């Protein structure tokens, strides 16, 4: 029994360590890159309150969940009280990344009488809490549009310094648009070498159409060239 348990745990720890570089390997170049992202996010809105942050991308598999998690950790390491919410109710991944159960989660909060304290999970990282997606609903876009979502945002804004939402891709479903209009800032994750140019342009238009405040982009999977020596030097 004990052996089995141990084996299972080890197997699962590997992807965790890989994805959450900021916590598992704070000295690495990539962690430094996330700290740069953190700084740039702070400077992107110096005179407006920035409490809710949405991460999305044009299409699937561009790394938005990984980046959202790492940025959340980077902010938590700075001493902020951060809440990470898996708002991707179609293909949730946060519970895998942090090795948590999927329920109870966001859908429970939005549809039934669960309260925040029952749903929020500790991430295992100081200062970072998370809300997993909860059971996958049949109508995610409508769920996110509910007034209970607005109420939830108001509630968590009081308890946390920063709330980070991990949203589905903009171009496939309207979920991200709905959320983006409710958030203070939206960040578009672009995967170097795989995101189509046409798609990013469309994604930007779609987000702007829903009155999202696009703070900027993060270029993921970017191979550092020789001209970026300073990363190497300081990292």
């Amino acid at each position: 029994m004990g052996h089995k348990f141990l084996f299972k745990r080890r197997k699962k720890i590997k992807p965790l360590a890989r994805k959450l570089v900021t916590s598992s390997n704070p000295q690495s170049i990539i962690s430094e890159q996330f700290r740069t992202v953190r700084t740039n996010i702070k400077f992107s809105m110096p005179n407006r309150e920035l409490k809710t942050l949405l991460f999305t991308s044009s299409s699937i598999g561009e790394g938005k969940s990984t980046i959202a998690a790492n940025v959340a950790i980077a902010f938590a390491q700075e001493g902020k009280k951060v809440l990470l919410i898996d708002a991707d109710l179609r293909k949730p991944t946060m519970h895998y990344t942090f090795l948590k159960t999927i329920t109870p989660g966001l859908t429970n909060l939005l549809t039934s009488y669960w309260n925040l304290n029952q749903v929020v999970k500790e991430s295992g990282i100081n200062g970072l809490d998370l809300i997993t997606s909860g059971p996958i609903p049949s109508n995610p876009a409508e769920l996110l549009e509910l007034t209970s979502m607005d109420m939830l945002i108001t509630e968590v804004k009081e308890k946390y310094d920063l709330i980070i939402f991990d949203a589905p891709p903009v171009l496939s479903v309207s979920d991200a648009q709905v959320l983006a209009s409710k958030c203070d800032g939206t960040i578009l994750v672009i995967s170097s070498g795989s995101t189509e140019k046409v798609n990013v342009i469309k994604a930007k238009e779609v987000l702007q159409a829903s009155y999202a405040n696009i703070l900027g982009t993060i270029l993921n999977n970017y191979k550092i060239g020789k001209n970026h020596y300073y990363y190497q030097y300081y990292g």
Partner: protein
Amino acid sequence: MEEAITLQELFKIIKKRFVLIITILVLSMTVAGAVSYYYLTPIFQASTQVLINQKEFDQNQFNSQDIETNLQLINTYNVIIKSPVILSKVIDNLNLKTTADLLHKQITVTSEQNSQVVNVSVEDPDLQKAIDIANMTVKVFQEEINLLMNVDNVNILSLAVITKDTKPIKPNLILNIGIAAIIGLIIGIGITFLLEYLDTSVKTEQDIGELLGLPILGLVSPISNKYLKKTKEPKSHNRNGA
């Protein structure tokens, strides 16, 4: 998206797919080498030389006028050597299973500018046969020219002989591999630029700036497994500390 490509970008594109280019290059060279070595029948060449000169014993001095005449004759002779009259006799004498037309293609007649020496070369997969044909051709030619033009001015300078180090002239392995290398390089670079042209994905910070006009909050490198190994130590430290 019409933009001029600078030389630097050109090099970058080639550098990026360098492995692909080299692979295609080596592959085409190997194929060319293997095909020429294993599949193409080697062709041997035998050459004979004929001197065209008027035999006039009474006249001791060379007359430049004579040489001029001879030179003009050579052009005529070049045609005669390869004419069916000669070639059909060669085929008869050697009992060859070929036609005058086919034999015509195997024979090359060349003469240097302003020289009275004519080279007759024969190409054949069989070296002995090439030698026989070359020798027989000039012999028949020498005899026939007497009848045809009523002159006796053809001397055989050298006959084709078998030598130990005779190597096939075709296929030329180095030439074929060389050509394949050039073609391979062109194809490789062609594919590289085609892929680059077809790849419409976002790649650099400049792309984002041009396309979206949005600020870039950061670059994130691919999270590779190399960070996994590094992570183990600090992680255990943390646990001990906590």
